[in-house]
């Protein structure tokens, strides 16, 4: 039951990064108040391909390279949004949020509340997350749980090209600050191991994915895997493997952490009675615990087996390839968790 709002029409096969650019292109053409701001987003086209071609199309007045000054340029986005513009501001790596966190959680996220709803901050903070390519502990984190933990900003995390376009369109049009976290591993970058699902059909023209609605990426009856971003792809791979053993896995792609589609989680677990949560962010105090609590707060009796979490253990992401793969939630760990909950 995909609830993606798609107009009937043509589509193209695009990588996730090109789908993101497609959304930006269409929204910048539609609304002159939209502009893109960040480090290396101009001639370079975004380190992760988030703005490829935008400078040529819209010029340096709307696709703006900034100094390496995240506090200043994210704050600039906030002030411009307060005055009625619709900035999309890129924080190159989610790992860098520490150098500008005050602007994010004390300003961008709180001004609407502190003003009693009188001031809106219609801004998108786009940022790249995730590991798997030996970039080390300061360049491989997801941290979407941190954004989601701090109130006042919506948090979307697309896993595939169509959602990348639809969620970006929705984020730009939203009157709230929206953090748009794109995992490098789903972007379809030419210089990174490609996931086959990082290139897919993307609707042409207006395509809006409502923020706060999860997607059943694969329907199944035996166990629910709740996940997001690159881990959706891993979970789908595992589901395909297990299907040959007669195990029918349902994969729920959250797509949005704030708001969190708790109904979709509860609906799926009600049907399957078993829950595995897969999250590339740190395990403790994070998304995986929130998903489990969503079920147990409602009715622990929905579960026929204890829920299992497959997340990054509470350790910085290691550099060496083998160590990194040992902590990331990859196919082997996901498969073990699914088989485990089916033992009960």
């Amino acid at each position, binding site marked *: 039951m995909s609830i993606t709002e798609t107009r009937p029409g043509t589509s193209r096969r695009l990588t996730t990064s090109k789908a993101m650019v497609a959304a930006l292109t269409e929204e910048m053409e539609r609304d002159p108040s939209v502009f893109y701001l960040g480090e290396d987003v101009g001639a370079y086209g975004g380190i992760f391909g988030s703005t490829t071609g935008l400078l040529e199309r819209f010029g340096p007045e709307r696709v703006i390279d900034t100094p390496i000054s995240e506090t*200043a340029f994210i704050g*600039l986005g*906030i002030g411009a*949004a307060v005055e009625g513009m619709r900035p999309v501001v890129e924080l190159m790596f989610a790992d860098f949020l520490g150098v500008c966190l005050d602007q994010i959680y004390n300003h961008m996220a709180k001004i609407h509340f502190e003003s*009693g709803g009188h001031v809106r901050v219609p801004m998108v903070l786009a940022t790249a997350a995730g590991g798997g390519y030996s970039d080390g502990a300061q360049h491989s984190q997801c941290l979407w749980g941190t954004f989601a933990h701090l109130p006042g900003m919506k948090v979307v995390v697309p896993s595939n090209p169509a959602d990348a376009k639809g969620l970006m369109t929705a984020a730009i049009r939203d009157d709230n600050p929206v953090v748009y976290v794109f995992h490098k591993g789903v972007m379809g970058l030419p210089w990174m191991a490609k996931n086959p699902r990082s290139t897919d059909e993307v609707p042409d023209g207006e395509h809006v994915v409502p923020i706060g609605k999860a997607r059943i990426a694969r329907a199944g009856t035996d166990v629910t895997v709740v996940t997001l971003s690159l881990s959706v792809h891993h979970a789908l791979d595992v589901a395909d493997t297990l299907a040959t053993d007669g195990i029918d896995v349902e994969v729920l792609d959250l797509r949005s952490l704030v708001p969190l589609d708790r109904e979709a989680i509860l609906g799926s677990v009600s049907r399957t009675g078993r829950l595995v949560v897969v999250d590339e962010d740190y395990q403790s105090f994070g998304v995986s615990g929130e998903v489990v609590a969503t079920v147990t707060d409602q009715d622990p009796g929905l579960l026929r087996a204890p829920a299992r979490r497959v997340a990054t253990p509470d350790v910085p992401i290691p550099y060496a390839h083998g160590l990194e793969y040992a902590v990331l939630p990859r196919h082997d760990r996901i498969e073990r968790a699914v088989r485990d909950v089916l033992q009960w």
Partner: protein
Amino acid sequence: MSIDARRAGVPAQAREPARPAPLDPEVRVELFETMVLCRSYEEAILAAYHADKGPGFDIGKGLVPGEMHLSAGQEPVAAGVCAHLTVDDAVTATHRPHHLAVAHGVDLRRMTAEIFGRETGLGRGRGGHMHLFDPATHFSCSGIIAEGYPPALGQAFAFLRSGTDRVAVAVTGEGAANQGAFHESLNLAALWALPVVFVVEDNDWGISVRRSASTSVSSNAVRAAAYGIPGERIEDNDVEAVYAAAGRAVAHARSGRGPSLVEVRTLRMWGHFEGDAQGYRDDLDGIEHRDPITRYEQVLLDADLLDTETAAGIRERARERVADAVDFARESPLPDPSTATDYVFAEEASS
């Protein structure tokens, strides 16, 4: 015009303050009136704040709960800067914001109601005295040192893009000038020639630490030079000198030449916050003689621009306006606790 083409080709050195030209008598009296209104406001908040704090001073009790940072002594900055602004210009203030809000024309009733935590307040009681947001006058403030500067860049950016000559004034204290946000903001505003006026209120004290113990230079005006923008320092908390310097800075910004910085050595007459016993201060003796309002009143009396009766009338009218705001706030309803989680998000998306 591209951003590069707008870079301000200003000399990379601090600008020497020019001797202020004689001011129009009406302007001089208006500056006095603004300062008096700011002070009346702070006196009223002071009284309200200390009402009902209980026998042992419970900071969370009373008409006005929480921390309270008052600005008595710093009125020349607010009056001298805001005299050049209209409500279409933006002001971003610090955690000590009232004098700037009053001088910029924020509605006194709704500001007071916010400070009293009332539903009729600027932020319906969600913000409090350090978090005042008034879209009608583009006024905002930040409780975090120096972090009010970056959003001011964005307001200036939006003004520039809209093709107007509106400006954004960003205020910090001198202690904030050691924060990264301050330096990043000066660099970016200078780079893009944004119409920003950076104002530094140097009241000598970062809570309890002297400027000399926290800041490597004696004047932040020289730091402006490091970013290739004009910088001026006013040494004597004189409203007319502030008015003159701010006038140059605002004109500079309005004419498309980009940002500049004005630092004013001002005076924190009271504690960092209410309840601060100021045991660390060794500059309190005779501080009443340094009160910039009574000093300026004497200047205007000597110049025959005021007589004692007129001055008393100005004070009385200010007190009446403030009393009206306090009455409004006092009589306003408190927010319904059941609405405590409202306004986290905008209710309607515009798509």
